[in-house]
């Protein structure tokens, strides 16, 4: 496994398979979680993660100029997700699938299910900032780098997204009562 991020970048740029394996081991799970948050479908999320890695191979000649690899691969994931959403011509596909999988296990299954359903009702921009920060584990500075915003704007967008999420949760609670 490459010792430093620079070694990892060098390995990716050189097209070494073990570097891609190390990158998957480091970020695969978080990429998948963030893709599920953005797309709402585990099948589409799998395809989006694969798109990110194939895209890295195709763009490997430019990888040596990348300063923040984490932000770069999450930006790639965002573009892959947007591309898949456009192809599906809907932002709401796969809602039931993720919601049901979330409801399968855990003591807070009902809250998890309602959170997933509420997330699906947010606009794409708000959903992706939550997916990157909460599911992908990116800092606001990293989210800002991915979205080409300032860190303050990324944090504000996140706060608005959480407020909207709370409103949607309240609405759904009123609807069920």
């Amino acid at each position, binding site marked *: 496994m490459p010792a430093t991020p620079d070694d990892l970048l060098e390995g990716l740029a050189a097209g070494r398979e073990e570097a891609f394996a190390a990158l998957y081991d480091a970020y695969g799970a978080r990429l998948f979680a963030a893709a*599920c*948050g953005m797309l709402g479908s585990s099948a589409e999320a799998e395809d989006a993660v694969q798109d990110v890695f194939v895209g890295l191979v195709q763009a490997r000649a430019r990888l040596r100029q990348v300063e923040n690899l984490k932000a770069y691969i999450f930006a790639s994931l965002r573009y892959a997700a947007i591309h898949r959403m456009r192809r599906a011509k809907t932002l709401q596909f796969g809602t039931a699938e993720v919601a049901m999988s979330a409801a399968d296990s855990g003591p807070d299954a009902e809250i998890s299910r309602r959170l997933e359903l509420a997330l699906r009702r947010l606009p794409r921009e708000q959903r992706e900032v939550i997916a990157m920060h909460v599911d992908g584990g990116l*800092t606001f500075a990293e989210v800002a780098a991915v979205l080409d915003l300032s860190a303050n704007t990324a944090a504000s967008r996140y706060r608005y997204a959480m407020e909207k*999420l709370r409103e949607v949760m309240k609405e759904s609670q009123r609807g069920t009562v």
Partner: protein
Amino acid sequence: MEPSDLPPELKSLEQHMAARSRPQPPAGLRPRVLAAVCRELAAQAARTRRGRAGFWQYVAAAAAGILLVLNLLMSMGNRSDFPVSRAANGADVQQAAAMICELVPFITPEEAAREAFVLHAGSHLEMVPQLRSGVTGLRALRQIEEGPPWVTQ
């Protein structure tokens, strides 16, 4: 995840979001992604090889074309002693060439033969009136039909 400046009720929602059960990547995703990476790397290598081969094929074809043109140009430039057919190289032409060689000692036999051939060709020319268009041409024709002017006058 870094702390965000959220009010307490949103903080609680954020904690629920972070603690919620999320789908894990299936075990088959890693080998699938790495297989796709290998395929793309192999395709890239093949494209690079094809690109190099295409370049050398182009260079070889261009070199062959240049050699062919050079070859043609050189053969055309060197071929100045065109063979004379037997009909045009009769006894009278050879005789004339021999006479030219006698008269001009420094001329080569090939050049003498060419000069003799040209003389021979010129000796078979027939006198033909030069026809001009319009009234002048008609007058010239009439003169030929009527004979030289000193005959009619």
